[in-house]
């Protein structure tokens, strides 16, 4: 039941965010009221846009904070961390050259691989996708993730020599 609930809820909020750019409506769950207000006002829309964006981002943030399970948040933090590490390595490669090229490949490849694996874990464990993976329990997904990650690390450490 929970996944269905989660899946159903984002739909109205998405509608709200798309419309709220033209309206001054602040509250998220007001899809009905938003439509009539937006139509007559076109000139003030530009004025109120920055404030709207604030609201939008705040909405997204608060929705994310409220609706996302804690372990999914953990995954997201880890994803951001990996993306930063990968970006730094790539930046270093551009600035300082790729001299031990195998080192660059394995260092950067480790982050890319880890990122992909973590995304997979997120997809498999997100409550919203429960129906897509009826046979994969979160525990099973995590075990797969750990095994695949260890293989990846083994490969990368070998390759960096």
């Amino acid at each position: 039941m929970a996944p269905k609930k989660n899946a159903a809820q984002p739909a109205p909020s998405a509608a709200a965010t798309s419309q709220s750019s033209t309206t001054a409506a602040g509250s998220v769950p007001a899809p009905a009221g938003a439509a009539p207000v937006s139509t007559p006002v076109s000139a003030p829309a530009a004025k109120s846009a920055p404030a709207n964006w604030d609201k939008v981002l705040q909405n997204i943030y608060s929705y994310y904070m409220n609706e996302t399970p804690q372990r999914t948040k953990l995954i997201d933090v880890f994803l951001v961390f990996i993306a930063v590490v990968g970006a730094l390595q790539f930046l270093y490669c551009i600035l300082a050259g790729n001299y031990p090229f195998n080192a660059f490949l394995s260092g950067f490849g480790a982050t890319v691989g880890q990122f992909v694996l973590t995304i997979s874990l997120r997809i498999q464990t997100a409550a919203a996708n429960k129906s897509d993976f009826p046979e994969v329990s979160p525990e099973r997904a995590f075990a797969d993730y750990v095994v695949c990650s260890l293989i990846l690390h083994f490969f990368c450490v070998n390759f960096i020599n």
Partner: protein
Amino acid sequence: MWSLLSVAAALFAAAASAVSTGGSRLLVVLDDVAEKDTYGQFLGDLTARGFDVSYETPRSEGLTLFHLGERKYDHLLFLPSKVKGLGPNLTPNRLVDFVNTQGNILLALSSTVPTSTSLVSLLSELDISLPIERTGTVVDHFNYDTVSAAESHDVLVLDAPSNIRPGLKSYFEVPGGVLAFPHAVGHVLGSGALLTPVVRAPATAYTYNPKEQAEVLDADDLFAAGQQLALVSVVQARNSARVTVLGSAEMLQDKWLDAKVTKVGGKSVKADNKEFARRVAGWTFQEIGVVRVNSIEHKLQETEELNPEIYRIKNDVSYAISLSEYSWDKWVPFTLPEDDVLQLEFSMLSPFHRLNLALTGTTEDAAVYGISFTLPDQHGIFNFKVNYKRPYLTYVEEKNTVSVRHFAHDEWPRSFVISGAWPWISGIGATVSGFVGFCAIWMYSKPVGKSAGKKN
């Protein structure tokens, strides 16, 4: 192997007597054996140097150059003979075979005797041409001997030759001397790379046939003139066998070896024919200008193993070749002519390196030339090749084949040795430790996460 053999041969030769590296059996072919007395001093000198001289006339029955397929003589000396052809035993073919089996030939010609057709054919094989009528005398109205040829001008007096080509050994140079060339036959050299002129006629010399062109020499009938005419030329075949053409046989005769000659407007001086004849014969019969390779050593620097069969790319190797040169009766260290270098090629099909070898050491009888260098970044089958071929010197062509392999997988520098790789190493470290931390938090916080997810 070759050097071992040559060392053995040299030891044997030294034990026998001081003699040429080519062997001691010398056959002198002349018109009449009694004629040898006119060359007594020259031939006596050869005998004294250890040659085992036999005399034959072209007509003699027992004359043969080969016995059971082996050379019977090591060297041939042709003195002028009146026979038109030299007979079935000295056909041009046989003579070429003789050269091909490393026999040496010294041809002495004279304008007073027509050259045998056999020798003319041999010379044309070597790209040397003689005047058409096989007789022709070189005259020079500015450089003749005023004592013996005041009228006929056919005894040339020349300054002793300096090397026509620079950068050669000075075997034929007699500093400050003069040479007398009585009744010389001039010859013209073709474009063959193995031909080297030793003495050329002066610019004012020309050749003519005294019998037919005594009165007037038509320009169309002129065979050659000036520097075109060579008086002494040498050929060294690809097997290092030597053929020398001496335009004037009479300069070997006793009366000309030490003759007093007077240049036009000059003083009476002693001709240096004796010294020159000695050098011409010595060079032709392989007593000088013979280079021997004693040993070749190549190795990885800072190791002891000699001549390994395999190297790795970018290895630092050193190469050394030991060379000796035979000088009349002993081996001496080989020294390069001025302005010449000994080069080493490190080649696979084409040379990847062509390096000048430097003299690194000298012993009593050998000079060592060597160099250290880094192998190219290319794996394959390579040769250390020394290809030193110069006129007057026997050819040195030494090839040592080695394999050059690429890096083995454990020969690369480890990443942690290369400071440039440290950011990526720490990147992997960050990823792995991040993963470990993530797993720990994941497992620790799982129930909380679930309940939190359910609550929300």
